[in-house]
């Protein structure tokens, strides 16, 4: 099966074809954000934070592995043969990646990293809690395992938004700037397309649109405590059915993959 196929936003895919896409989206969010967090290794503001960022990334990498393993099994059901987690991670080009654009954006300063994490973690947690009740038992058990870990991520990133927002003039300005800049990438977290609709109808997927209100309530509560303002913009990248989840990415993903995939590209099939 070609790695570059795109789900049409119009035609309704079959159940397993939709499931493959859906599980890839879940796994790719984890793998790409884990790679971004790994860039912080050795650069954290303090040792404790350096380790914490890496541990969050490690959780996400482990979750991403579970999703990509399942995606490969679904692909085998569909096409007779399925790719391994490593083939999916290291041998797909940008257009075949299905992560939301938010997670591929560069780390920026510490405030930008934590703002990205804050927006993502709380949407991620709501999604995983909903998926823990999925009609697909494999989806449900991976989600239940991951939610235990993401609950901690969400508490932690909210704490940092409050600490930096309600901190010094400099930290407050940086956190507000980061929240404002990343805001237009949050719409894609709650966008739905034909893949979602097929699986929501089957009780397998969570209705992302329904997660927006509880997510916004949490964001508003945390920003109020942080003495920060909720960004006002309404334009959202990738929420029109042509975003990262459909394989349309920012220019940043290719650079990330160039580093992440270098070894397998330069030495195909290398093992150690």
């Amino acid at each position, binding site marked *: 099966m070609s790695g570059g196929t795109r789900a049409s936003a119009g035609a309704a895919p079959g159940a397993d074809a939709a499931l493959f896409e859906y599980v890839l989206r879940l796994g790719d969010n984890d793998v790409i954000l884990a790679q971004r967090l790994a860039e912080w290794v050795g650069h954290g503001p303090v040792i404790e934070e350096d*380790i914490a960022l890496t*541990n969050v990334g*490690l*959780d*996400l*990498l*482990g*979750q991403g*592995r*579970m999703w990509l393993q399942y995606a490969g099994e679904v692909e085998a059901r569909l096409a007779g043969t399925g790719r391994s987690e490593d083939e999916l991670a290291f041998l797909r080009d940008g257009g075949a990646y299905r992560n939301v654009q938010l997670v591929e954006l560069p780390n920026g300063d510490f405030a930008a990293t934590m703002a990205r994490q804050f927006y993502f973690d709380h949407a991620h947690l709501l999604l*995983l*809690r909903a998926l*823990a009740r999925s009609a697909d*038992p494999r989806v*449900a*058990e*991976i*989600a*239940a*395992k*991951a*939610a*235990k*870990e993401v*609950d*901690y991520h969400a508490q932690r990133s909210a704490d940092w938004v409050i600490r930096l927002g309600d901190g010094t003039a400099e930290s407050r300005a940086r956190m507000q700037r980061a929240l404002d800049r990343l805001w237009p990438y949050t719409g894609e977290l709650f966008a739905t397309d034909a893949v979602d609709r097929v699986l929501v109808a089957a009780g397998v997927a969570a209705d992302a649109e329904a997660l927006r209100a509880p997510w916004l309530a949490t964001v508003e509560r945390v920003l109020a405590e942080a003495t920060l303002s909720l960004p006002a913009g309404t334009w959202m990248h990738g929420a029109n059915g042509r975003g990262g989840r459909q394989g349309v990415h920012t220019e940043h993903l290719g650079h990330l993959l160039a580093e992440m995939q270098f070894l397998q590209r330069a030495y195909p099939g290398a093992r150690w």
Partner: protein
Amino acid sequence: MVTDEQRALAAAAGAGAAVPPVDVVWDALAGVPDPEIPAVSIVELGMVRAVGWDGGRLRVEVTPTYSGCPATDVIAGMIRERLAAIGFADVDVVMRLSPPWSTDWIAPEAKAKLAAYGIAPPQSRAVVVDVAGVSPKGRPRGRTPERAARR
């Protein structure tokens, strides 16, 4: 290496006869240390969920403590090695995610060993979040800070 006795046992299990007792397997697994905290075994940590015969093959179900645990593959290898040493050469080591592991799965006696090893043993605490509505069998229900033990 498979002994003649094991071959006979496996054949008997495959033929639907009474399966061999798994106590010997549990005892062997109790000798497999956690690679990161060797003071306790993988059984004491609650990582081994089930041992049984499945169509003539020995099946060991293991749960990861956290998703990104880099020791998971090592542990599967140690299990195979330990069981091969007592004659079970052909073992399926299967990952089981549900119900998710928490520190409530750690055996009480292992908490004393963790303390002696220099790790503050996690205590059970009130439920903060219960995403799956599941409760580990025979262990108190709850969510605890497993990172205290793992990292």
